[in-house]
């Protein structure tokens, strides 16, 4: 009796063990995954997205030809291989790139994925009436053509040393032609069904979408790897604020993953102490910086002079003096700023181009340590002497700065700290914070946008998508200075004009070798920083939190954070 019992038990145990091993390899074995983005998703079509949140949600469904992994290395997704000059995929004259596509891919509705879908996606974005978000990825593209069902050639109008703009990274994935065919041009706006439930090749498909609230995904049964994804459903909730999002993962354990947690470090630390989850950070190219206005922005000036470059005839009364801006940079203790507002999510930096590593210059590291005496000495030498109230002045010009940024508690704390540091070198500061939708909005009628820059110094974060800085660095060319003639649409917010810089930018545009590009990039970075057009403060990481039970998360600053969600499991 006992023996029989033991045998049945052993068989039962064996059966259970077999079941669990087969279960391990099964799609959807880990049930539900709960993701929390405190900015809610407004559309699942990244071409019409309202920001990173939409692009990342869409990356569960839609895939590009190639993506970046967490080290910034390009890996094929829907492409069979990464084309290079060496393997003949990129033409020797750099005028075209030919992508071989994987042959085994089907859309979640079961139809095969072909080159026609890629060609369509390019046409979809290049249509001028459409208002395409990742348009800059398609710069200089003249024609996208299907050489056969599984080969696509992208032709450029100029030589492209870095031809990996279109369809690389989650900002410009492939849409299904059959689904979006009727949605081109102005009609893109009205295709609600398509925009909310795009058919994709990724590990999940959209079951239910409530705009600005929640998305329910389920595993795509046609996904190319039969044992993935491990989760059967994903609940993608949005709304609220960063602190409560962190709390839901780290303190209450209601959610598995929370995104973009820019929270004061001590608050985050206390939540992590609950032992339910961990915080992960990945450093990409985000730099929190002070932009120094090189033009006179006095409110007394008329509209056609205020904060305008006017070919250098309207210089700032004191910030155009290199001594002043150098002293301002030296007076800042960047480590204090990191400890206050960023913790593990930030590092002090002296570069506007801190990554990828080949591009990171170390010529400016002197600014890493605060040096009040040196700053004071520089100002004394330049003739800026303290007045009766302790504020330095020269020829009736007081060192009084209007310092603006967008509204956000970490930024306001940083403002207060910097104001005090500048107080130590006799510089007076007035702080102003502006609602982000106004500050970053491009309404030409508003005086408070960062493009208008009606202040002496402003602070914000900027970065670039992917790993190639050419387009980003081209922002500081003279031709990019914002003004009424270009509706304030220019990236050279500091309004600096430097002939050497423009020459380097032109050189980079025709240089193909990575080492040479890196050398040019570093030199450009040094010009910007050493002339104090921009005072870099903090190299910021992407910070997210995930439950301890969630495995396989590899935080990626170069692409969608959810880029490898197919590999996530419990």
């Amino acid at each position, binding site marked *: 009796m006992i023996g029989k019992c033991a045998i049945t038990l052993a068989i039962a145990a064996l059966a259970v063990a077999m079941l669990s091993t087969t279960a391990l390899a099964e799609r959807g074995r880990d049930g539900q995954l709960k993701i929390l983005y405190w900015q809610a998703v407004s559309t699942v079509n990244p071409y019409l997205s309202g920001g990173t949140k939409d692009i990342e949600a869409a990356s569960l469904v839609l895939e590009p030809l190639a993506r970046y992994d967490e080290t910034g290395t390009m890996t094929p997704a829907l492409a069979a291989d990464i084309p290079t000059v060496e393997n003949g995929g990129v033409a020797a004259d750099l005028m075209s790139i030919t992508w071989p596509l994987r042959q085994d891919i089907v859309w979640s509705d079961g139809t095969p994925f072909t080159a026609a879908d890629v060609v369509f996606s390019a046409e979809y974005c290049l249509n001028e009436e459409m208002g395409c978000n990742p348009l800059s990825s398609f710069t200089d593209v003249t024609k996208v053509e299907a050489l056969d069902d599984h080969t696509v050639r992208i032709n450029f109008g100029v030589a492209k040393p870095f031809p990996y703009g279109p369809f690389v990274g989650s900002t410009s994935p492939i849409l299904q032609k059959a689904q979006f065919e009727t949605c081109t041009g102005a009609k893109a*706006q009205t295709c609600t069904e398509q925009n909310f439930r795009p058919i994709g090749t990724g590990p999940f498909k959209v079951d239910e979408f409530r*705009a600005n609230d929640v998305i329910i995904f389920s595993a795509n049964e046609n996904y190319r790897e039969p044992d993935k994804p491990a989760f059967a459903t994903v609940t993608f909730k949005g709304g609220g604020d960063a602190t409560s999002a962190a709390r839901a993962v780290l303190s209450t354990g209601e959610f598995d993953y929370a995104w973009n947690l820019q929270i004061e470090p001590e608050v985050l630390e206390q939540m992590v102490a609950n032992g339910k989850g961990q915080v992960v950070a990945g450093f990409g190219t985000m730099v929190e910086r002070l932009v120094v206005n090189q033009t006179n922005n006095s409110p007394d000036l008329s509209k056609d002079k205020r904060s305008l470059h006017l070919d250098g005839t309207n210089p700032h009364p004191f910030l155009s003096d290199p001594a002043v801006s150098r002293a301002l940079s030296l007076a800042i203790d960047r480590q204090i700023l990191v400890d206050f507002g960023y913790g593990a999510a930030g590092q002090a930096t002296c570069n506007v181009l801190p990554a990828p590593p080949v591009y990171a210059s170390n010529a400016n590291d002197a600014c890493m340590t605060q040096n009040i005496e040196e700053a004071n000495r520089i100002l004394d030498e330049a003739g800026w002497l303290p007045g009766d109230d302790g504020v330095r002045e020269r020829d009736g010009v007081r060192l009084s700065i209007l310092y603006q940024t967008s509204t956000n508690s970490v930024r306001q704390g940083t403002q207060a700290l910097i104001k005090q540091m500048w107080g130590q070198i006799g510089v007076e500061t007035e702080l102003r914070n502006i609602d982000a*939708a106004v500050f970053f909005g491009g309404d030409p009628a508003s005086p408070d946008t960062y493009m208008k820059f009606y202040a002496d110094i402003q602070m914000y974060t900027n970065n670039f998508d992917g790993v190639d800085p050419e387009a980003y660095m081209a922002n500081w060319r003279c031709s990019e200075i914002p003004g009424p003639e270009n509706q304030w649409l220019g990236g050279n917010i500091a309004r600096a004009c430097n002939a050497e810089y423009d020459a380097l930018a032109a050189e980079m545009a025709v240089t193909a070798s990575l080492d040479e590009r890196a050398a040019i990039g570093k030199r450009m970075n040094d010009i910007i920083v050493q002339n104090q057009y921009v005072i870099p403060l903090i190299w910021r990481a992407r910070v997210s939190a995930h439950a301890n039970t969630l495995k396989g998360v590899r935080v990626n600053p170069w692409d969608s954070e959810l880029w490898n969600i197919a590999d996530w499991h419990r």
Partner: protein
Amino acid sequence: MTHYIIRRLLFAVPTLIAISFILFALLDLAPNDPTGQLPLTIPAEAREQIRESLGLGEAFHIRYAKWMEQFFVNEPLNLIERAFGVEIGASEERLRVRSWATRSPVVDLIIERLPQTLWVVGLSYLIGILIAIPIGIVSAYRQYSWFDQLGTFVSMIGFSVPTFFTGLLAIIVFSVTLQWLPSIYDTTHRVTDLSSFWVQIKQMAMPVMVLALFNAAQISRFMRAAVLDNLTQDYVRTARAKGLRERIVLFIHVLRNSLIPVVTLIALGIPTVFGGAIITEKIFRVNGIGELLITAIQGADIPLVQTLSFLFAVLIVIFNLIADVLYGILDPRIRYG
């Protein structure tokens, strides 16, 4: 009375049209921009194209006229079609009021959001009123008793401590420490049986209580003041002198007269129920109308803000009319000429 109502309703039409124009002008003038929340990596030229595609390139009066047509003609037609399953004209070609952020019809968004707002905000309003009126009456009737003092204290705390704080406190106590209640509201949850109903109760408990405290605080103060005013009136003395029972004096005579200001307050509050509770919805991620509105405002989603604010204005006008009619019923002395 009927005459009065008809006249008021007729008068409401030009009022609402004027309000819609002022709203549109205000939103147009506001300095925030729909591309303001896009990542800075999107260059200026692409932003300009996006603005054009949203129709921002057109002149103010054309955009206003388009909205008027879409809102007053196309959307009602659409609702009729949906309700009766008929097709009137070329319904595919009809332009609908579309949100700029989601590119989906605004009316669909509102319909999607209404249930959770009505559940949470509506229920909290109801509970607030049900708590406030008895508290107000007892506090006034037993003025300066311990009950009155306690009621005063609690309602003043309830009103002076903002919901962003009480909500956070509730989450820390009930979600983090005790782990009894969820801190995040699940809008996709469907009530099918008793256990799912229990889940619904649990997820509503905190936002409803936080809001009810706030509402009750306000209404109970006005109720108390109104009852106090009436308790000293001559008619109360007369009624008592006639030998009427105290309960009848209090609940028939005093209550009826005291309700006049409170009815105004309650009627004024009902549109805000539909308007949602911005902060509470955000804290508990209820994602109702209030959250929709604030997201739209922050993202300068003008069609959505315009439509929501206008619907809100319609509700305000209607409920003010209802309040006025109720005055007449509660107090026959009030005459509308």
